[in-house]
């Protein structure tokens, strides 16, 4: 039964409300239509953060492979190239798996559209994927020359592959994603470096861990933690709140703890592998935290209405 004053009613009587549960910010006065979301909650399933993670892992591994080759560790470089191939394969499969019409995946390459990061990313993957394939398999089939060239091409494209996914998420109306458009590419790029280094450490034979891989993991993890902190701070109390509440808050906290612990454990030789495993998991968790935060941000009209109200009021005051 609804009575005047019932929270579910819209409009003047009770449309004004503030949400109490778990709120970290003071209750804001705002009105809604029966508390229904203004935005649609993203329909992307877990495939999408998995696609971000795997794509980053591939990109980092392509860079790591060139660094290792340069330093003279050919075996480790080969492992990194194989990792890149496996990861970019997985990333592509994850992306296609999320499509509502999988048999139409190639429609991504019908047009070229810089305002669509998913389109730009598809073109990037169309160039990067084959380069990674040739880099990883060329040597096996007796084509070391093309393999080396393809490795360089893959490493050249890798920084773009590692960061465009940040633009992909940011280029939406979801407040917690859009408002972080300056930070998300750094967060994802750092995660790419961290995870590839971590995987390089994990795949190395005991006692022969390449120093460059460990440094990738440590530097990447530190950059990732700093980028995540900067993102949360720049979002402010209201829009950034989703990183502190609900599922997104839990996953974000887990990502932070895991990456921090991993970075510390990577330094002593004895705990290196454990640290690498944690950094790898942390980078994955960070992508899932961002995905989950977007869902929470779109689901609650508060995150849409209150900032837009303030923006409109500011504009009135300045004109």
């Amino acid at each position, binding site marked *: 039964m609804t009575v005047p004053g019932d929270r579910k009613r819209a409009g003047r009587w009770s449309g004004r409300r503030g949400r109490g549960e778990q709120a970290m910010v003071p209750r804001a006065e705002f009105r809604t239509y029966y508390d*229904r979301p203004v935005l649609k909650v993203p329909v992307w399933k877990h495939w999408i953060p998995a696609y971000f993670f795997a794509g980053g892992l591939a990109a980092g591994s392509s860079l790591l492979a060139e*660094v290792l080759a340069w330093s003279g560790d050919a075996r480790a470089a080969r492992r990194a190239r194989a990792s890149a191939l496996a990861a970019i394969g997985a990333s592509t499969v994850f992306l296609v798996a999320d499509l509502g019409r999988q048999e139409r995946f190639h429609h991504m390459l019908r047009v070229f559209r810089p305002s669509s990061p998913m*389109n730009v990313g598809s073109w990037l993957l169309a160039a990067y994927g084959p380069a990674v394939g040739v880099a990883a398999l060329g040597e096996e089939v007796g084509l070391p020359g093309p393999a080396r060239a393809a490795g360089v091409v893959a490493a050249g494209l890798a*920084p773009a592959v590692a*960061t465009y996914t940040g633009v992909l998420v940011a*280029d*939406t109306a979801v407040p917690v994603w859009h408002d972080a458009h300056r930070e998300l*590419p*750094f967060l994802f790029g750092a995660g790419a470096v961290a995870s590839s280094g971590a995987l390089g450490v994990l795949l190395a034979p005991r006692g022969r861990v390449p120093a460059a891989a460990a*440094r990738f993991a440590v530097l990447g993890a530190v950059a990732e933690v700093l980028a995540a902190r900067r993102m949360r701070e720049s979002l402010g109390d209201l829009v950034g709140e989703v990183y502190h509440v609900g599922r997104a808050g839990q996953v974000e906290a887990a990502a932070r703890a895991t990456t921090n612990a991993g970075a510390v454990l990577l330094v002593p030789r004895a705990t290196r592998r454990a640290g690498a495993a944690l950094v790898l998991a942390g980078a994955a968790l960070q992508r899932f935290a961002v995905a989950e935060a977007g869902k929470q941000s779109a689901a609650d009209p508060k995150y849409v209405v209150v900032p837009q109200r303030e923006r409109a009021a500011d504009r009135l005051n300045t004109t």
Partner: protein
Amino acid sequence: MTAGPIADPARAAGWDAPGERIGFFTDTTLCIGCKACEVACKEWNDVPDDGLVFLDSSYDNTGTLGASTWRHVAFIEQAAPRAVAESMLTDALATVAGDIGALPSAPPEPRDGFRWLMSSDVCKHCTHAACLDVCPTGSLFRTEFGTVVVQEDICNGCGYCIPACPFGVIDQRKGDGRAWKCTMCYDRLHVGLEPACAQACPTNSIQFGPLAQLRDHARARVDTLHARGVADARLYGADDDSGVGGLGAFFLLLDEPEVYRLPPDPVVTTRDVRAMWKAAAGAAAMVVGLAVAAAGRRR
């Protein structure tokens, strides 16, 4: 161009000789909540049923716009002064009378202290349409009428348009996988018919025509309402310099937009796409920097 005023979005999208930009003007003061628009839309466009549910939200059991709901009538119950309620009732009855030739024998008395806001929501066919901008397949396109339409034979169901829309309009249809929304009856426009919802609307709350003409008419209507003491009347989406560059479907509202589930100050996300790619370039440089720093000395 993803921001700023555009006089003719169809021409900007590459049409050589587009017609006049057409649109909807939804005058919510005339809406009687009959939902004929919802039904006509479903019938004409063969949109599947989206469930028979009771939502406990006044007479709104439709919920919200979505893949299978291209018109949604919102019902809002509010306290209001008698003058406002009276003015709305008079207009609605007058339009009905114009259509059926007579007023009901005993027009109902407006009740003091109460008003019922009803509004038929629809895709806004934005001048700067985020759904279209982010669509990776080119499935979403700008028509020669200045409207935004999904090509169902192209859409691969990537879902990107869904979080991109600042109005929460477009959605993925379950079991189908593709994204769907209002086409402003693209097929009917081609043969000179008005969209099904506008044709079905018995009170002319949904008005269809050249956008410039609708805007002039809407401004005059606001003036009339203000003169009658309906001080709350305001237009939503009629300005070209808003964050979405003006709406192809705009509204006359009697309360703040958020009361109708409309965002108070929507901005097309792609307005910032340059800044985003710049940030990505910076981040790419950081990735290279980290790799170089990690490389250390050659053995």
